[in-house]
């Protein structure tokens, strides 16, 4: 069985280049759209933009904002062999219509859609929700710099 120790690390997906700060109070759909746009260059040549946009829009309906106010829209693609993530920080946050929770951080996660990777995918989701607790989100929202945000999240 693949375990968390088998290479799932937030540092592998969250770097200064994959952190996006969003001003104002965008809607949930707007946040997902901007995260998807930021994801496109990372997976170009592997997944077409159309496939990415439509797949993310499809799975986004199933995803629920966590109690901590962290949102993880995620999708799996058979073409991928690695995990990809884009972190969105929304200092002013938006009110999630489904749960009524204020969301100030969201991470779009793309995972390989292969049975061997599903354990890692679960580990990644668990690790993300464990990391993005309300205290960390508070600190993130107070930052302005993507590098500082990536360092805060990864502890590096």
């Amino acid at each position, binding site marked *: *069985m693949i*375990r*968390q120790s088998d290479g799932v690390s937030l540092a592998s997906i969250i770097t200064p280049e994959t952190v996006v700060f969003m001003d104002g109070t965008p809607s949930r759909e707007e946040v997902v759209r901007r995260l998807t746009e930021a994801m496109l260059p990372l997976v170009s040549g592997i997944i077409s933009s159309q496939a990415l946009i439509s797949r993310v829009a499809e799975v986004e309906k*199933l995803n*629920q904002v*966590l*109690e*901590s106010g962290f949102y*993880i829209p*995620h999708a799996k693609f058979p073409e991928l062999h690695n995990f990809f993530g884009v972190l969105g920080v929304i200092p002013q946050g938006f009110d999630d219509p489904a*749960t*009524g929770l204020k969301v100030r951080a969201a991470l779009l996660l793309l995972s390989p859609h292969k049975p061997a990777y*599903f*354990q890692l*995918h*679960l*580990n990644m*989701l*668990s*690790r*993300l*929700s*464990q*990391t993005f*607790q*309300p*205290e*960390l989100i*508070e600190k993130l929202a107070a930052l302005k710099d993507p590098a500082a945000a990536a360092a805060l999240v990864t502890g590096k």
Partner: protein
Amino acid sequence: MVPNPRFKQVLVLSTAMLTFISFWKAAAVVLCDMGSSAYYAGGIAMNAFGPSFPWYVLAVMVFAGLMLMVYVESCAMFVRGGVYKVVNEAMGHSMAKISVSALMFDYMVTGPISSVSAGLYIASLLNNVLPLMHVNWHVPSRLVAVVFAVAVTVYFWFENIKGVQESSDKNFKIMGFVSVVGAVLMAWSLWTVYHRGFNLPPFELKFTQESLGWMTHFPWLQSVGLVGIFMAFGHSILALSGLETLAQVYREVEDPKILNLKKAAFAIFLFSLIFTGGLTFLSASIIPPDLIGGKYLDNLLSGLALELDGPYWARLILQCFVVVSGSLMLVGAVNTSLVGANGVLNRVAEDGILHDWFRHLHKKYGTTYRMINVVALTQIAVILVSRGDIYLIGEAYAFGVLWSLVFKTAGLILLRFKEGLPRDWKFPLNISSDRGDIPVGMILVFIVLITVSVINLFTKRVATVAGVSFSLIFFVVFQVSEYMNRKKAQLYADSGDPEERLNLRKEADIATILPELTKARKILVPVRNPNNLVHLRSVLETADDETTDIIVLSAKMVKGAQLDADSGSISEEDKDLFSPVVLMAEKYGKTVKPLLVFSNDPFYSMAQVAHAAGAEEIVMGVSGLTGAEVQLEKLAMAWGMLKKPGDASRQVLARVVWEGRQMTYQLS
């Protein structure tokens, strides 16, 4: 800021938390009722048809083995395979009501016959012991019996009102003690027989005018030998009482249920044959017939102890032990009858054939006190009317026993021809046919039962008049109740307070429930759809009840402000969910801990309960809406959210199970 708890209250369905017992204990519970007839059946039979009674008591005990097999088949089909369930399935509602009426009559007389018999044994002992203590006072046996019987009934009435359930441990200890006393009595009897020699009891039947009943009007029938045999058999059949307890106790029998049920049935048969049949036989061989028909008529086993070879003081000590063990067993039968009658009435009330008035719960103890009151008051009335005459109660007794068995056996025969009712065991002697197995063996049993029952209608006038009247009264009560309930249901659909009828316990927090989870392993089984319990079945099939707590969790969705309100109530929907859960747990003989939480995120609730309880596994059924992968993803996120950042220690195995497949992943 820490995430808010996603649920505020936890509801524990304590009615569902059965603990399961070994086959020895199950046998002990039944024998405390069935075996107690050893103390009075011989005397009553002797009074009815003379010194040949041991043959018939022995025959009844052999027949009990067949009836036990009938019960095993019914339990192999229904976890709660009592008379009501079987007859209802086979012959419909009306016949079920008639059969339950007869069964209720059985219960109403079981208590009195047992308590009066115990009183008579105590009185006989006092009459032997008091002169030795220079107290020259003759104890009026019947008066003592009535006073004792009423006192015992009042005691157990109050115990049942308080909801103190019959403990199988207690029954087991009583039966252990009774077995030791019985073994000593038997060994000593055999030694006496060895020294004195013995003559086999005669086969000749000597019916009294009373025991012939209305048969005196049919002298030509008396000349038919077989009729006489059935008449004598009918006068001894009361030794068979207590079988219904087997159906009631079956739900508590531990896994593997059918195997343990068979073992319990065999233990009951063997004990009854040796204890009731054997000791009655030895009594007839050792006690002079005039004493059996005289001073030992209502305390036969005391008589056996006193008529053995040996010094008087030793025999008196043995009598003390016989009386103490007998009283414990007989008194236990009083409680069993109250518990059994209350259980049957609750069962029929669930089906709406007993008016809701009866189902009202006691404010303090939460028991169905009105049902218990009715049963206890009727039993006290029977005791008072009998004025301590055990023969009179014995005469009436057989009616309920026999007719409930007639209906039950007929029901099982009919069910053999009904499709889609699998059973793990069948009564032997079957012939295969296109329409199913023809249960030749069971039909033969039925022929015996119906013949004895019909003959008893003529010979046992007290039983016929009292039994028919009483059953009719109960039947009318059931009819009227059903009519009123139906009318009420039309007027006020869903107006009742369902929670009131379930033993629910509200707890503010999951933490208060944790001390109740004492086993080494814990498995959390979330449930949502009563038609999708494959995952629960897989857990029940594999988990070791000794070492594993199975927590069955239903997370009921509530939104926003509802979560802050006192949302702790259970709906019909919840009951529909938990009923099959409880039945399935009963079927596998494993204990489950059913919890209901009100939550706005079921996955968070699952994770929270699993985390708090230290569960090693979370076993989910597959959701048709989202699929297994999405379920696991949501659970993984909820699980992670509960962990402190950097805490890598807690892991849980998450399984999604559906027919023939499962997905298993570790959540870290």
